[in-house]
């Protein structure tokens, strides 16, 4: 093989265009998001914007709960004490049923990490197709200090391959999807 063949080989391999597993199919982003989330034992709910408070209160009332201030005031516990935490997520990723929590501060990562039950609230309009779309949005300069992709509950199979949920993180994940307003 001469050196030009080599150049051709190397450059053509670099130019392989990968297809996202989704690209060729037609799909409904919201439906796919729900399907993929439920496939990994995530609970999902779709609610209207005006019902956020009533619906979420049903989840937290009477429990040791932590709720993000912006959603509604709920004075109870710290994230370390709470059994359930409700927090907004920045994005959803339909391909894998993932919610994305970005933050500058470590404390903003704790609600999705310490309590046994994590409730992520995500706007339907923030559900993206795949990670390509997300990374395009995030850019490279000054991306958030902390980004977490969360897909289903915390799990392990380290003891004789038995699947057990809630090892260190939440054993239960609920995603509350807030419908786009134009649907109202």
């Amino acid at each position, binding site marked *: 093989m001469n050196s030009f063949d080599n150049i051709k080989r190397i450059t053509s391999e670099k130019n392989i265009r990968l297809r996202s597993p989704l690209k060729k199919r037609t799909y409904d982003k919201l439906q796919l998001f729900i399907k993929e989330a439920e496939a990994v034992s995530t609970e999902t709910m779709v609610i209207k914007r005006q019902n956020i408070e009533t619906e979420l209160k049903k989840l937290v009332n009477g429990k040791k709960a932590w709720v993000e201030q912006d959603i509604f005031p709920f004075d109870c516990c710290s994230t370390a004490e709470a059994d359930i935490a409700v927090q907004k997520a920045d994005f959803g990723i339909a391909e894998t049923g993932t919610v994305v929590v970005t933050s500058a501060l470590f404390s903003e990562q704790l609600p999705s990490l310490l309590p046994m039950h994590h409730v992520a609230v995500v706007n339907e309009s923030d559900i993206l197709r795949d990670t390509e779309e997300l990374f395009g949005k995030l850019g490279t300069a000054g991306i958030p200090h902390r980004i977490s992709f969360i897909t289903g509950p915390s799990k392990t199979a380290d003891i004789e391959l038995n699947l057990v949920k809630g*090892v*260190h993180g939440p054993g239960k994940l609920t995603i509350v999807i807030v419908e786009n307003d134009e649907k109202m």
Partner: protein
Amino acid sequence: MSRFSDNATAAAKDKNLQTALYNATERFKKLRADVIGSIDFESYRKKASAVKSDVIDHLSYYLDQFEKNAEKQGTKVYYAEDAEKAKEIALRIIRDNNGSLVVKGKSMVTEEIGLNEFLQKQDIEVVETDLGEFIIQLAGEKPSHIIAPAIHKTKEEVGRLFAEKLHIDYTDDPVKLTAIARKELREKFLKADIGITGVNFAVADTGSVVIVTNEGNGRMVTTVPKVHIAFATVEKIIPSIKDLSLFLRLLPRAATGQKISSYVSFLTGISKEEKKNERSRHIIFINNGRDAIIAGAFRNILSCIRCGACINVCPVYGFAGGYSYRATYPGPIGIVLTSLLEGISNRSDLPFSACTLCYACQEACSVGIKLTDMIRELRRAAVDRKSTGKKLSIMMRMYGTVFSSPELYKLSKAPINMMIQKGTKKHE
């Protein structure tokens, strides 16, 4: 020192181990097979291979880029020539931050450099937090598989271990055992000053450290303690965050048959506000022999993303288990890496005894590493160096002659087939 074949013979007689290995490798193979077809695996691994080759070809360029971007965001970047240097740097960071309790995420490179033993000698408490790693740390053992470190232990063994070491009532219920570990380790997370992890990907164009876990311990370790120290061998770099879509689809599918793992954490520097509160993030890039590998004919071995697929499909690993290799990295990837890191002539037992040249690993590799071809080359190199003794050397030359002639090969297969049949019967 016992050689691979002696260790493997002993392992083959251990009934518990044989059951555990069979169940685990079959399960991993099935999980991978169920999901790998949801992407165009061949194009994905070709592309992954091209990206990693580009990284290795231009490593110092990407390391510089990573350093520049990471430091801009507040991560401190260090370079360690070898294991000793890496441990010294870590110790200095821990001392500077008055650390006394370290919580650790799962990391093969810290196994490679012997970090835990080193820190414990300095009176620093080190707690492994991945459930499998926690179990083997309690047992005083080493991981026997790179993604399932306690693969060799039965639930009854774990139950007895927990009862003895954690002073609790015996149970062998995995759910209860996991809950016990959660409680035990939660206290450690909240008390720890220092979190130590490996790195799945170090992203050059953002300066981010990316960690993939299922249990959430990786998130805990990098979120709760004030100081995070990440250890990465130099080849963990990838050029761009945009390359991650590819690797995040490949790695979990190949490793555990998931479309994505439960958690992917991107850690990029530290905010000004956290810095004021003495929070910090550090990454130590370790060479530890990689420069010699890059200079040689086996450089592509550094493309490995540690998915473990080659280990699960390897028929020899399936009987011998991880400990037989007497090395940090078991299975086909371990044969090649260990030979290169410890010297071909020192570990010629591995390419000769731990491989049947069946090509299952090469077929499974997520990043297209020609593992079996490399093992064959290692044999050749060992023979050339005459490090294996004259008898074996002559045998290998005979093999060479036989395998290069179809007629001789056909003739030679009859007795081999008989041997294989006999061997299979023995295990029934």
